[in-house]
């Protein structure tokens, strides 16, 4: 067993830390404040291959690993959780299922554009009445000659406004429940497809979270992803992978809050001493760091197992559950250690605490992760 990074991973970590510090961090407060999607950061990430880390070189990707990808989402999220989720949704929820389930023609058509960052990807499963109960899909896809006609809507879709390609799920046979769901690849500009309301959110405010609206949207049959009626399985497997990304995002948020807090407690003086000299501060920091390091081990293990082609579904669920709850706890403590200043937007921990909350909710709530973990124990 080896807990060390490889030389290649060390080199990658050096680059991504530099990039996050110099290109992403300076925009984080503004992106949050103005609810602005950081287009320029996506362009910079695209240029150096961050939008296609685990995509093989034959499809224009960097040919890297899921461990590297999780390290990227971690480091980006440590300074800006919005940027972290843009990369995570794009990579795990759009490029990954096309790579896994796409035909060769679909891979050739979509992956080079996604991996190069020329196109941004998104994923649509959630509906107003089908959240955790994903089987309650009401969006329908009806066969019509060489096409499918899609009607319905999807909500809370990350990257929605800025994406060019969407993997979406729709009912092709309502009577079959989860066995009647099929996945489709839909391009921006497809007739009958439009972007609906943009959400105003508590955190990750720079990521464009919108509704997708399908009104007699005509999708050619060749855009079906995977086989007819196999969409539910594709969605669940896709979310398994996505959870590594979100776990890495949560891990990054926690680490970012620790970094800010360590800096602050050394500078802030009360009763004639820096507050780092008080045992309460020291014990809080120790707990924050221990839990964050444990999150990191879980995230890296899940990513490693995915790379090694081992079953990783439970590992990804544990990583996401633990990292998300740790992010919430650590950012809460970080704000507390900052005192009144921590409650203001003068310090980034205020934003980090707001950003942390979503990691307990999206791509499977913490409750769903507990279901996945215990179901595996009791089977």
């Amino acid at each position, binding site marked *: 067993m080896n807990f060390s990074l490889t030389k290649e991973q060390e*080199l990658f970590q050096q*680059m991504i830390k530099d990039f996050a510090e110099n290109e992403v961090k300076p925009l984080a407060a503004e992106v949050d404040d103005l609810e602005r999607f950081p287009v320029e950061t996506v362009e910079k990430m695209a240029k150096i291959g961050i939008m296609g880390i685990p995509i093989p070189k034959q499809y224009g990707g960097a*040919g890297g690993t899921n461990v590297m990808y999780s390290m990227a989402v971690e480091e980006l999220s440590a300074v800006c959780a919005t940027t972290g989720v843009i990369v995570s949704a794009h990579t795990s929820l759009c490029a990954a299922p096309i790579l896994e389930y796409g035909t060769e023609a679909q891979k050739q058509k979509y992956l080079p554009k996604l991996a190069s960052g020329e196109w941004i990807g998104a994923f649509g499963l959630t509906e107003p009445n089908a959240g955790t109960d994903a089987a309650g899909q009401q969006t329908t896809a009806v066969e019509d000659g060489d096409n499918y006609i899609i009607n319905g809507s999807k909500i809370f879709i990350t990257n929605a406004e800025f994406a060019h390609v969407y993997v979406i799920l729709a009912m092709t046979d309502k009577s079959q429940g989860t066995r009647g769901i099929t996945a489709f690849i839909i391009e921006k500009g497809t007739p009958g497809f439009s972007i609906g309301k943009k959400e105003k959110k508590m955190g990750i405010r720079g990521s464009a979270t919108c509704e997708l609206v399908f009104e007699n949207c005509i999708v050619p049959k060749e855009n079906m992803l995977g086989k007819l009626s196999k969409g539910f399985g594709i969605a669940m497997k896709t979310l398994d992978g996505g959870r590594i990304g979100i776990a890495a995002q949560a891990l990054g948020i926690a680490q970012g809050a620790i970094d800010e807090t360590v800096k602050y407690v050394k500078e802030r003086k009360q009763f004639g001493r820096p507050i780092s000299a008080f045992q309460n501060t020291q014990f809080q920091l120790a707990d924050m760091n221990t839990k964050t390091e444990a999150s990191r081990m879980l995230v890296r293990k899940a990513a490693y197992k995915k790379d090694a082609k081992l079953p990783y579904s439970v590992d990804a669920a544990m990583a996401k559950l633990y990292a998300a709850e740790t992010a919430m706890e650590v950012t809460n403590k970080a704000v507390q250690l900052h005192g009144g200043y921590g409650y203001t937007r003068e310090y980034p921990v205020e934003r980090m605490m707001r950003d942390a909350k979503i990691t307990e909710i999206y791509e499977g709530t913490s409750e769903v992760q507990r279901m996945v973990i215990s179901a595996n124990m009791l089977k």
Partner: protein
Amino acid sequence: MKIVVCIKQVPDTTEIKIDPVTGTLIRDGVPSIMNPDDKSGLEMALQLKDEKGAHVTVITMGPPQADLILREAYAMGVDRAIHLTDRKFAGADTLATSHALAGALRKIDFDLLITGRQAIDGDTAQVGPQIAEHLDLPQVSYLEDLKFDGDKTFTMKRHIEDGYQMLEVEAPCVVTVLSSANTPRYMNVGGIVDAYQKEVEVWGFNEIEVDEKDLGLKGSPTSVHKAFARGLKPAGELYEVGTDEAVGIIIKKLKEKFILN
């Protein structure tokens, strides 16, 4: 066009702290980086490659761990990497270092040799010019910009104390580059994935053309007499006064120090 860039691995001096008790450098945990001026030199070479097409080689002299900056250079886009390492090179000052590098460069065909102005660990700015002297090549130091006409002439902008010099220089030549010349690119993710698959050529004394007496400690005329940490400056005096009074105080202080008459 063939370009060679000399790069050096240095401790990140912005991260170095002085032990307040012993007055010595705390080197533990200080990361090693590619010297910033050298990185700008490398960026200049890669920009020429992007614009005009060029074959870029990097070379470094240093201990085995200096391999890291050669991998970094591969991940930035260079075509060839050479690592000069041999016990005979150990303990070299700038002169012995430049002899070893010149010995290696005699084995490589190039039109342009780029070095950084100076390394942040020694700040001598001597190695680049010394290499040019050993190889008997024209040299231009303190470069801010360089253009290539596509044939054999470079147009260079050289930073001097009170302005700039514009120069035309024919290949082959040696230049030393300032870190203000450009912002070096990030390593490419795909380049990082490939960096450890590529070969770094390791050259020792036997691979280069140099006289052994010019190398290592024997070839180093520099001897360090004494090293010490400079004392901390005392806290300044703080006056909270209006502008006119402040100007008066500053003039009085400057006169006391005989800076003003």
